[in-house]
């Protein structure tokens, strides 16, 4: 599955994912909407990256293509050194299963499975049980996320914040190359949001987990090591770690310019 690109080695460059001149348009003719318009970015290994931008700027679209959930109109996307825009559906599926983790805004969990079933689902799909060290890792996740006494509960018996924590446990369980999170705190109150964001940030600093998170919220973005700003399907700015105030004022400036 590894297609080596002689011109560019992502591992050497410290990138876990990259897209190049990515475009995505919906519809045709005069109705065509361009959701992404030549986006080129790299996500660094071991970093917590936030992708920000106004509503409709193409954040979710970008994330879906990078995660192999959706196809691009043109351009390329890599996960590690694997070029994913040319993969068949079956290979993409297996790539998602083994090398990518997801946390969505809502509806993250399979309602028929209990908490433990949901966390172990990626292994189940691969037709295997977690190996010994993976089992220990999962145990640690369950404890640090405070899910130990909830393992036999089903999703509808959990609060929104608890459900998100289960989703995080599942996303981290396979120690994927990259975890994608699309507005993971969109449905949560501010205290629970802080909890969930700290967990994501900690998994990046403590365990070197690479994370790409889409968000509207300057406070959420302030937990990230790096922030990419999107507007009208283009990358307009890139910043290092910033405070919520700095991010807000930049966003306001962007809105004024538009």
């Amino acid at each position, binding site marked *: 599955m590894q297609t080596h690109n002689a011109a560019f080695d992502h591992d050497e460059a410290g990138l876990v994912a990259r897209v190049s001149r990515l475009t995505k348009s919906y519809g045709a003719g005069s109705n065509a909407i361009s959701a992404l318009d030549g986006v080129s970015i790299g996500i660094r290994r071991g970093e917590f990256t936030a992708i920000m931008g106004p509503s409709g700027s193409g954040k979710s679209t970008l994330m879906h293509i990078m995660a192999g959930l959706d196809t691009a109109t043109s351009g390329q996307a890599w996960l590690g050194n694997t070029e994913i825009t040319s993969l068949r*559906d079956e290979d993409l599926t297996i790539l998602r299963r083994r090398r990518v983790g997801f946390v*969505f805004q809502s509806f993250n969990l399979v309602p028929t499975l209990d908490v433990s079933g949901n966390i172990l689902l990626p292994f*189940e799909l691969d037709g295997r049980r977690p190996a010994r060290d993976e089992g220990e890792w999962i145990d640690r996740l369950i404890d640090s996320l405070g899910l130990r006494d909830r393992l036999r509960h089903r999703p509808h018996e959990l609060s929104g914040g608890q459900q998100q924590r289960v989703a995080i446990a599942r996303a981290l369980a396979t120690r994927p190359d990259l975890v994608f999170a699309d507005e993971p705190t969109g449905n949560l109150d501010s205290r629970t949001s802080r909890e969930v964001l700290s967990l994501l940030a900690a998994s990046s600093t403590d365990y070197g987990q690479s994370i790409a998170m889409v968000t509207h919220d300057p406070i959420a973005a302030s937990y990230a090591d790096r922030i990419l700003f999107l507007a009208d399907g283009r990358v307009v700015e890139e910043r290092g770690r910033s405070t919520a105030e700095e991010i807000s004022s930049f966003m306001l400036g962007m809105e004024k310019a538009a």
Partner: protein
Amino acid sequence: MRREMREHVPSVLVATLSAAFGVSLLEITAVLGQIIAADDVTGRSKTVGILLGIVAFVFIVISIYVGAIVTANTFATIIAGRTRTIALLRLIGSSAASQRRGVAHEGLTVGILGAVLGVVSGTAVTVVVVTIATATRFVPSLPYTFVEPVVLLPAVAVVLTTWLASWVGSRRVLLVSPIQATGGAVEKSRDEVSGRRGRNVTAVVLFSVGAGLLGLGVLVGLVNPGGVLIGLVGGILSFTGLVLGAHLVMPPALRLTGRMFGSSATARLAAENAVRYPERSSRTTIGLVIGVTLITMFAVAVASYQQMILAAQRSQPEAYQGVDQTLAITVGVFSVLMGFSALIAAIGMVNNLSLSVLQRTRELGLLRALGFTARQVRRMILAESAQLTVAAVLVGLVLGVFYGWAGAQSLLGSIHGSPGLIVPAVPLLLIGIVVAGAAVLTLVASIAPSRRATRVAPVAALAVD
């Protein structure tokens, strides 16, 4: 509105089939009556005509009963899928009662549509059959009248039962609370379902009393053929108990069959899907259970009946002359008539499975996003379908063998030369047909849902509807 009517297409089909069956059967009975009346020998005897009428009536009632149960379950499934919408309407001030009236209104429309289509297609079938029969000189050509007022009876019955079924099936509208508009609405889990005391007690009491009466019928039958009447009452009571308590009976059967499919992720998820929502899986399977029970009951009754008559014939040959041929013909005709009810039950199961898959679009999208391949999704749905079919068929076979045996035993236990209590005779041909039918049904039932499911894009899980 268009989507709402599309959901009802299978219910219209069920209503149409029930009505067409009833109409056509009555018309053909009437034609047979005219042939008999025209015949010099049999014409004077009224008995044959009356007997024909009774038989037609029994089969029409059975097919309408099965149709009504299937429709009620289909409506319940549709309502389950609409929970969010209903809750939203409740949230902005619509009353549960008016919502339910709306659903019943849809049921009435379905019933009327099905009845009209049924009268037309049923009459068309009769005309074709009779035309072919006269053309081949199989029956004399007389000036037959097809459409008599009496054929409207099954049509009206179908309208009323469909309406009633939609009313019964929409009961859960009342359970939808406005708050469900905000969260992910889930169907009741096993614990909650088992907690519904009143219904469970009724089911158990009905079943026990019915089973007791059945046993009594068999014992009385050893000395008096009137035992069959006691047995009939017992059968109806105990079976109604079973239908009411399906959510208690089906999950164990499903868990048992679930083990047959191994422990891969697909199989386990399929098994979980079938077991976790007993209400949903009972709804999907109960129609088929009834269908298989009816067929089996009938076949076993006839085989046991045959066995007893033959035993009696051996001991008293002169009393039972020429009985073999009559038996064979009766068995053939009755099997076809019974098969029709099973067909309606099968349609109900296919439809319920499709609906329940359709309602799980987001869940399937999530599984695809997390790494379920399209093939795994297809296999999961096939396994789910197989599990439901196998469980329904097993339960139906067991019940059918028991009821069929009880029927034959209580009717014939006391005839001349009867061997007394017998072991139920289970025709192997029947088992073969039922198993083959179940296999076909499993495949058919999974085609549409799995095609739809594999078309679900992984991003569908993320769409906030």
